[in-house]
C-alpha cells in the first residue's frame, strides 16, 4: 500500500512537473506573442491613440469606507463615459484596486499598479494613510497620481514628484474653520473632537491651533463608534458654545444627534469628511439643522448630479466631483498624446483648468494652488450644497 502510494505520488509529481513545463512554454510563447503584438500595434496605430489605455483607482471600494471609494469611482466613471463618447475609436477604461482604505493592503496593490504598463495614471490614493504608504512606490516608478481626497498636510512634504491632489489640505481648511468659529459664529468656548484617524486628527489639530485659548476641552472618539454618551456628557458639562468635529459623516451625524438630544444648543461644525447628505440622514433633520460643514471645494454645477446619476444609477456623494476632475486631468493628457509616465507627469504638473470642484493647477509640491474653503450649511433638514459661503 505504502509503496504504491509513493509511486503514485512520484507519478503525480512528474505529471505536475510536465504540466508546469507545458504551461511555462505556453507562457513564454504568449509573452512572445504579446510583445510582438504590442510593438506592432504601436507601430500601426499612428496618431494620438494608444489602444487599451487605462486609468487606475486605488482606494476603498469595499469594507468600512467602501461608500467613500464608490463615490470616487462614480466620478471617474462619469469622466470616462464622457471621454469615451467623444473618442469612440480610442476607449479608455478604469481598473479599480480595492485597498479597503488600509495602508497595509494598499502597498502590494501599488506594486501591481506600477507593473501594469497599460495604466497611464492613478486617481487616488483615496486616504491619507494609504497615500503615505504607497507614495514612494509610485514615485520610484514615475507613475503620476492625483488624489481626490487625501488631505493630510505631510504627504506633499515627502518630495514625491508624481503625487498631486485636487483638494486643499487640512492646514488651510483647519485655519478657515477656526476663523469661521471665532469671526462669524463668535463662539468663545469651543470643544474640539476628532476620530483618531490621520485625517480627522490632523484637521482637528489645525482647528485647535487656530482657536488657541478658546478651546475648552478635547476628546478623541473611534471610527465605527455609534454611542457617544461619554463625549456628549463632556461637551454639555463643559458649557461649550461650539463643537468642532474632525472625522467622517457617519460618526459626525450620530454625534450631533446625541448632542442635541442631550440639550446641547451651540454650533456644530465639521470638515469635508462630514459634507455628505448621509450626515443629515444619520443626525435626523432637526438635529442637523444649523450645522456648518467646511470643505475645500465649491458647489458642483447644477447638472453634475443628474449626469452622475445617469451613468452610475445612484446620487453623487462626497469626493465625487474631485474624482471626476482628477480623472479629467489624465484624460486631457491622453487626448494630448502623452503616453510615457514622464510626459504625463509633466502634463499633470503644469495642468491648468476649471474643474467642477473649482480651478485646478498644482504648485511644485503637488498641492492645489488655489483652494477656497467654503462653509456649507444644513437648512430645513437638507445639506445646502448649492449655496456655500466662501471663508476668507
Amino acid at each position, binding site marked *: 500500500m505504502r509503496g504504491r502510494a509513493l509511486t503514485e505520488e512520484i507519478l503525480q509529481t512528474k505529471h505536475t512537473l510536465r504540466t508546469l513545463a507545458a504551461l511555462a512554454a505556453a507562457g513564454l510563447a504568449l509573452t512572445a506573442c504579446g510583445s510582438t503584438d504590442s510593438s506592432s500595434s504601436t507601430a500601426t496605430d499612428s496618431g494620438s491613440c494608444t489602444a487599451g489605455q487605462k486609468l487606475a483607482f486605488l482606494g476603498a471600494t469595499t469594507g468600512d469606507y467602501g461608500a467613500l471609494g464608490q463615490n470616487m469611482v462614480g466620478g471617474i466613471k462619469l469622466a470616462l463615459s464622457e471621454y469615451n463618447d467623444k473618442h469612440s475609436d480610442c476607449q479608455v477604461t478604469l481598473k479599480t484596486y480595492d485597498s479597503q482604505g488600509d495602508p497595509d493592503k494598499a502597498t502590494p496593490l501599488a506594486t501591481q499598479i506600477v507593473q501594469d504598463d497599460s495604466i497611464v495614471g492613478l486617481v487616488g490614493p483615496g486616504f491619507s494613510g494609504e497615500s503615505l504608504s504607497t507614495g514612494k512606490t509610485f514615485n520610484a516608478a514615475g507613475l503620476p497620481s492625483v488624489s481626490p481626497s487625501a488631505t493630510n498636510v505631510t504627504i506633499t512634504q515627502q518630495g514625491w514628484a508624481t503625487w498631486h491632489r485636487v483638494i486643499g489640505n487640512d492646514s488651510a481648511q483647519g485655519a478657515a474653520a477656526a476663523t469661521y468659529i471665532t469671526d462669524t459664529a463668535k463662539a468663545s468656548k469651543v470643544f474640539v473632537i476628532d476620530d483618531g484617524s490621520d485625517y480627522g486628527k490632523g484637521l482637528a489639530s489645525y482647528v485647535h491651533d487656530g482657536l488657541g485659548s478658546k478651546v475648552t476641552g478635547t476628546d478623541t*472618539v473611534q471610527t465605527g463608534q455609534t454611542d457617544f*454618551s*461619554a463625549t456628549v*456628557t*463632556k461637551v454639555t458639562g463643559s458649557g461649550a458654545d461650539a463643537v468642532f468635529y474632525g472625522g467622517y459623516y457617519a460618526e459626525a451625524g450620530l454625534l450631533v444627534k446625541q448632542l442635541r438630544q442631550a440639550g446641547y444648543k451651540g454650533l456644530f461644525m465639521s470638515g469635508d469628511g462630514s459634507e455628505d447628505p*448621509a450626515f*443629515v440622514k444619520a443626525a*435626523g433633520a432637526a*438635529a442637523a439643522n444649523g450645522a456648518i460643514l467646511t470643505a475645500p471645494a465649491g458647489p458642483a454645477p447644477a447638472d453634475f448630479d443628474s449626469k452622475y446619476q445617469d451613468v452610475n444609477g445612484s446620487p453623487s456623494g462626497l469626493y465625487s466631483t474631485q474624482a471626476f476632475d482628477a480623472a479629467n486631468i489624465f484624460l486631457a493628457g491622453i487626448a494630448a498624446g502623452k503616453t510615457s509616465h514622464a510626459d504625463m507627469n509633466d502634463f499633470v504638473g503644469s495642468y491648468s483648468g476649471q474643474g467642477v470642484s473649482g480651478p485646478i493647477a498644482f504648485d511644485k509640491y503637488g498641492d492645489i494652488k488655489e483652494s477656497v474653503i467654503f462653509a456649507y450649511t444644513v437648512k430645513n433638514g437638507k445639506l445646502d450644497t448649492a449655496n456655500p459661503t466662501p471663508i476668507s
Partner: protein
Amino acid sequence: MDFAFLFNHFAQLTITGLALGAIYGLVALGYTMVYGVLQLINFAHSEVFMFGTFAVAWVVVFFHGTGQTNQSLFGTLGLLGLCLVAAMLTSALIALLLERVAYRPLIKKGAPKLIVLISAIGASFSLAEVMGLRDRIAGWFGLQDDLANYVSQARNVYSSPVTIDPKGLFDIGNYRVTDVDLFVIGAAVLMMVGLDTFVRRTRLGRGIRSVAQDPEAAALMGVNSTRVIRATFLIGGLMAGVAATLYMIRIGSTRQNAGFILGVKAFTAAVLGGIGNLRGALLGGLVLGVAQNWGAAVFGTNWQDVVAFVLLVVILLVRPTGILGESLGKARA
C-alpha cells in the same frame, strides 16, 4: 485623568452606560446560549443583529416613507411594535439559516470545533458583504430602482427617517433620565427574565439545559439534539432582534458593518458575566457598558475599550469563569 468630571456627572454616565450595556446584554444572550449548548462561539451572531437593525429601518421606510421627522417614543409605539416583529423575524430567520448552512452539516459529520468556528467566521463575512452588496443583488432582479429607498448606496450609513426624541422624565443627580433610557433598560431586563423563566420552566428549556449539561446522556433520554440546537439559534436570533430594535431606537442608524464592534463588545459581555450563563450575559453587558462610560470619562473616549478590556482581564484573573460562572452546563476547563 479627570476623576472630578466622573463624580460630577456620575448619574448621566452610569445611566447612559446601562442603556448601552442592556443592548450588549441582549446580543450577548445569543453568544452565551449557543456556547452553552455547542461549546462554540457563534461569531456570525453579530450579523444576525445587523440584519435586525436593517429590518427596523426598512419597516420604518415602508410605512413612513423617507421624509425625516422627529417623534416621541410613545407617539411611535405602534410603528415600533411592527419594527420589533420584523426585526425578530428577520434575525431569527438569519440565525436559523446560519445553523442550517454553516453549522449543522459540519456538526453532523463530527467536524473539529475549530472548523466550525472558521465556518462561522466565514458566514459572518458573507452576511455582512451580502448586506453591503444588496444594491447589486437587487440589480440582478432588475429591482434596484423599485427598491432604491432600501438598497441604494448599500455600503453607506442607512438611517431610520423617524428620529425618536427622548423626553426627560425625572432627575437623578444632575441628569434628567429620559423615557428612552428607561425603555431600553426595562425591555432588556424584561426579555432576560422571560428567557430565564423559559429555560427553567418549559419542556424545551429543559431540553436546552440537558443538552448543555451532557449531550450524549440527553440523547439517550430521548432529547432530539438537532431540534434543541435549532431552538437555541432561534431564541438567540429573537433576542438579537429585540436588541436591534432597541439599538435603532437609541442610535437610529446602521450599516453593513454595524454588527462587528457591537458583536465584539457583546461577546466580551458574555465572557465577563460567565459564558453559558444567561443572567451573566445581561449582567456582563451592563457592567461593560458602565465601565466603558466611566473609563471614557476618566481617561478620554479613545481609552474606553482599554478600560473595558482591562476590566475583563482582571475579572478573569480573579474568577476565570466570569462574574456569575458557568451555569447552563457542566464545568469546562
